[in-house]
């Protein structure tokens, strides 16, 4: 006998989606809570420590925002690409490319270089532009490959990740290398650092950049004509062509924009956190950003929420490890559980357990 059966009436609509996500998170936290028990810790106080630190303390929340900014930008890139039907996975590489571009511009502001003395208000747009263009070109190559030669963007974009990582490796061990030991660039001039949001708070202007980008992506994708064409392209390329949409062009645009957004994440990381280009500094953030986009249901607002939550848990995990001596890996397991449970929630909005004695007539119930 089968275990699952298709729901006669799938629970659709925004409310059902939000509810199933909320339930999935609660369920993941409940199951995850059990993981604390072997350590003799009370799950409730562990969670209190986890979320209290990252959302309720000034310091912790600053860290949360610091970590959320790049995730939001990458998540937005994912939304743009995937909603247009462009299965791009090369965000990690774009982050590195954007970081390199921002570093390069910032280094030109040093004493004795061509841009020396450039005020921050002029520097920042320049840095944003540089990373947008660099990332846009980088992912645009993948887009061009697809629209011109029908290359599979999933594979090419993954390969491009390696190329980007190696390129940065080359840069920091050659042209951009800091005189001296480590494979990293010289420290960027202080004038190019993103300012703190508030004194004594780790969060910097990066989160503002990310939120502004979310607004722009929302308006572009969900309110503009070009966004409409992109969404139609992603949902049904045949209908898009029928409707006079230049499908290849829209996908190429989406590719460039997605890469540009991810590159801005790299810029935020360099100018806001590391203050220099470091080999391997992206550390998988490009993939976490995609997860955040999925959790955010490929909606710009959802991405902001999911990224902040995800970042907060990561920050809280460190604090928890420091304060309560609980391994932070538990939190990463819980993060993964959330992803799994949300996927399961998607499944159960369409299917349900097949129980004996259950009548079809009751099949209308949602989640």
């Amino acid at each position, binding site marked *: 006998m089968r275990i699952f059966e298709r729901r006669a009436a799938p629970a659709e609509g925004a409310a059902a989606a939000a509810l199933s996500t909320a339930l999935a998170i609660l369920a993941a936290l409940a199951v995850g809570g059990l993981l604390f028990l072997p350590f003799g810790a009370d799950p409730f106080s562990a969670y209190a420590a986890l979320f209290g630190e990252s959302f309720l303390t000034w310091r912790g929340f600053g860290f949360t925002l610091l970590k959320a900014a790049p995730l939001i930008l990458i998540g937005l890139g994912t939304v743009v690409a995937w909603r247009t039907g462009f299965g791009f996975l090369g965000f990690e590489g774009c982050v590195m490319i954007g970081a390199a571009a921002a570093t390069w511009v910032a280094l030109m502001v040093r004493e004795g270089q061509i841009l020396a003395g450039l005020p921050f208000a002029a520097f920042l747009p320049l840095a944003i532009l540089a990373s947008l263009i660099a990332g846009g070109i980088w992912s645009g190559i993948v887009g061009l490959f697809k629209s011109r030669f029908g290359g599979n963007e999933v594979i090419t974009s993954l390969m491009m990740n390696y190329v980007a990582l190696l390129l940065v490796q080359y840069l920091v061990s050659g042209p951009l290398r800091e005189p001296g030991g480590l494979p990293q660039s010289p420290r960027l001039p202080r004038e190019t650092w993103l300012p703190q949001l508030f004194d004594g708070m780790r969060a910097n202007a990066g989160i503002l950049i990310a939120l502004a980008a979310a607004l722009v992506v929302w308006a572009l994708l969900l309110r503009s004509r070009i966004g*409409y064409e992109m969404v*139609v392209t992603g*949902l049904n390329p045949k*209908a898009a062509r*029928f409707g006079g*949409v230049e499908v290849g062009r829209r996908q190429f645009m989406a590719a460039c924009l997605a890469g540009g957004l991810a590159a801005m994440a790299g810029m935020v990381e360099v100018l806001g956190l590391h203050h220099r280009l470091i080999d391997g500094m992206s550390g998988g953030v490009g993939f976490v950003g995609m997860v955040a986009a999925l959790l955010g249901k490929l909606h710009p607002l959802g991405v902001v929420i999911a990224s902040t939550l995800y970042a907060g848990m990561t920050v809280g995990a460190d604090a928890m490890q420091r304060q309560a001596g609980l391994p932070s890996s538990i939190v990463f397991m819980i993060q993964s559980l959330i992803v799994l449970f949300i996927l399961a929630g998607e499944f159960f909005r369409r299917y349900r357990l097949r129980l004996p004695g259950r009548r079809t007539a009751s099949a209308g119930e949602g989640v």
Partner: protein
Amino acid sequence: MTPFLSARGIVKRFPGVLANDHVDFDVNAGEIHALLGENGAGKSTLMQIVYGLYGRDAGEILIEGRPLDLRSTRDAIAAGIGMIHQEFMLVRRFSATENVVLGLKAGGALKPLDLEGPAREIAELSRRYGLQVDPAARIEHLPVGTQQRVEILKLLYRKAKLLILDEPTAVLTPGEAEALLKVLRTLADQGHAVVIVTHKLHEIMAAADRVTIMRDGRVVGSVKTAESSEAELARLMVGREVALTARRSTRPAGPSVLRVEGLTVMSDQGRSALEGLSLDLREGEILGLAGVDGNGQSELAQALTGLRTASGGRVLLGERDLTRASPAERRSAGVAYVPADRRHVGSVGALSIAENAILGDQRAYARFGLLDRKRGRSFAAGLMERFDIRPRKPDYPAGKLSGGNLQKVQLGRAIASDPRALIVEQPTRGLDVGAIEAVWAELLRLREAGKAILLISAELEEILNLSDRIAVIYEGRIMGELPAAQADLRRIGLMMAGSHGEEDGHADL
């Protein structure tokens, strides 16, 4: 006599729509039972409930008088209920036999699949019901009509007693449709119960024993065809008199609008679909392009609208050469298109009706790059009012519309774009008579307004009723062209089958 299947008081609610409102429906063994009703009346919904695809909010289903615990299609199949969907569910690269046994449990997973036994059984079934299916033939090599009979075999092989066919003849040629109805009669004679959902009244009169009529989710009557007439059925269904004859004014055609010269086009399979086809579409006329489906009509429409590149020849709109123009350029030049595949080409199911209504015209709805959604919604609302699209909710997802209503969205959208030339492909496929009447009236109104209309249709009746001139396409070539006044069924039929339709060997072209 207890009916084989009896549905009692079926209620089905979709968000905002009462699709079935206490529906009672009986089918006897040995009868062909037609289900008739306007687009969106709830026919497909009812059939999908009976087949276990949809749950119901109330009501019960009895098989031979006993309540059936119906929770999935599996339960339905076990009870002897089978259904054929409009889109066939066949694996194109598999043989007929493989398709028939697909999904059935056959011994252990490791045992080699025995296909010889089933093949013999299928051949036997095919012979018994006059299905004429070669068990070894690959689906992709079979014409649509035969593929449909493979679907029927699938049901018979699973011992279906009741066969439900939802608009089975919509995709068939007249010859194939006739053959199908014969097969259905054989099935009924041998004790099966058959339900066909169809909008074609003459088919119902010719083939069905009984007909149940639905309107707005309710059953409004059930009559014996022998005691009824097409006119009565139409009246029951629409709730008023319908006269399906188009009254055309005679008016001289104006100057040429859209010219096709020596157009050569490849099909998706890389075969030649059009071979040097020429046509001339004039202002204020309807040019009917008759032909059996799949003789290059779709490729022609796509080449005219820029969805397919021509490998030779020219397309001219007035003086302007559009051969290399993009779909968007052709649209703005004034060529509108209503594709036959409304679900996959003409609309985006996940988007709302309003968002679909502006597809193709999105530039006109943009202000400073932002879409004016309010205007889009009010445009859609107007469209729904004018073409009686139900449910009248611009935010309803287009994919949830019944086939006929979706078609009205498409057609309304094209008409509203005020084109110079309109290409309509199978405009009334799957539409109820009331809707057909409305669509025909719209097309004639466009003609009065001086538009040039290319009507591509496999329905001869439609072609004969609407066209000023009739061209017949066969294997990518125009077999002949004649003014409507001189058209007779026999000649056109001959040309559609590939002869020039002139006994004395003189062609009109």
